[in-house]
């Protein structure tokens, strides 16, 4: 192992790792909004709205994220959609993870015993009030855990935007392997950074999970 080299390339990789975090965090934020909208659409009273949400989720989950990325970045201009690489990474990442996340959120909501809904409605709460005060607080724990799993997938998926030349961790690693011919050193460092990011995400998820399920420990 060439430790001098590893020290030399660390600043470059840290900078690139920050881009990985940045792009993933933004995609997660917008992805959550998209997912919430999809969940709402799936329970809509208007059939075509429900159909659209279902079809969207099915198509996004049924095609590779990588192909979606290439389609939007290279094929987008043909339909008047010109995005810079970073924005493209955020947008496609958000629309992709949103589809998966909507299923996770729906699953968490459905995991709450139906008796809770009936009890709440029998007290006179409306549909939205029941969701807000009764269902969501109970679904929160499971929701946080499954969104956490998706956040980790998002971080790993973000490596694919290197293909459209976003200078994130994997892009930088590949370039450094090419220029230094030291794959082991570069891989060790960049893998370490992914591991740090992923463990940080896991830590945050666990913290939020404990807060959301405090009632279970009282």
């Amino acid at each position, binding site marked *: 192992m060439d430790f001098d080299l590893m020290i030399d390339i660390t600043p470059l990789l840290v900078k690139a790792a920050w881009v990985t975090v940045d792009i993933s965090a933004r995609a997660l934020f917008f992805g959550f909004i998209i997912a919430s909208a999809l969940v709402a659409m799936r329970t809509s009273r208007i059939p075509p709205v429900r159909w659209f949400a279902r079809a969207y989720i099915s198509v996004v989950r049924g095609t590779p994220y990588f192909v979606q990325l290439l389609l939007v970045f290279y094929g987008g201009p*043909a339909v008047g959609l010109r995005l810079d690489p970073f924005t493209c990474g955020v947008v496609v990442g958000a629309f992709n993870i949103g589809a998966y996340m909507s299923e996770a959120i729906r699953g968490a909501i459905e995991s709450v015993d139906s008796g809770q809904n009936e009890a709440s409605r029998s007290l006179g709460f409306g549909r939205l009030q029941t969701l807000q005060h009764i269902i969501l607080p109970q679904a929160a724990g499971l929701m946080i855990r499954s969104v956490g799993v998706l956040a980790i997938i998002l971080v*790993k*998926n973000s490596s694919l935007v290197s293909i459209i030349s976003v200078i994130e961790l994997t892009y930088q690693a590949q370039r450094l392997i090419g220029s230094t011919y030291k794959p082991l050193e570069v891989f060790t460092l960049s893998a370490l950074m992914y591991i740090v990011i992923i463990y940080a995400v896991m830590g945050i998820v666990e913290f939020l999970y404990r807060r959301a399920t405090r009632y279970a420990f009282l």
Partner: protein
Amino acid sequence: MEFDFSPVIDYLPTLLQGVGVTLLIGLAVAVMSVVGGQIVAVITLYTRKMVNWPLRFFIWLFMTTPLLLQLYFLYFGLGELILIPAIVVGVLGLGFHYMAYNADIFIATIKSVSSGQYEASRSLGFGHLRTLFYVILPQAFYRALPQLSNNMIIMVKDISVLSAIGIGEMVYVSQYAISVTFRPFEFYITIAVIYYLINLMMEAGQTWIERRAAYRR
């Protein structure tokens, strides 16, 4: 804007060849990762910690780093040591990646087979190994099927990533066609549709396998 799918028609034979490569890689990786995952899980569970820690480490490493990074490392790392074709690197890379994920599942399902099953088999006179082969592993396999088939569905989509190291699957052969025809949208849409169809078929297969396996659990 106007679409012109005639270049896609022109390149259809090339594209279909890419589909064939995708499916073959998928088959090879599925076999390698399921069989290998089971072997890794058995070794991990039935040997001492001192012996199996490298396996545990690699399962963990493959699961906490991105596939593309692993592929680059294998491609440039192995490529430096010995001359091997990219497609071998691709199958091995994808194979090891999903072997780790599958091993993780098998470890959990093998553990989940109750001790009563072990006792019943031993009380009939079966030894450790036969109990493992006739009783524990088949049950662990049926229990693993839902997650296992999920992994395989995700895996097939990941084959597209292999284009990054120059393997002639669907995306890679299209990239060549695109560089000549300048029709990225049409080609990528076509690939998306093909992938979607493959995915639909795999999901149907998953439902079918699930139904058949359900009463054996």
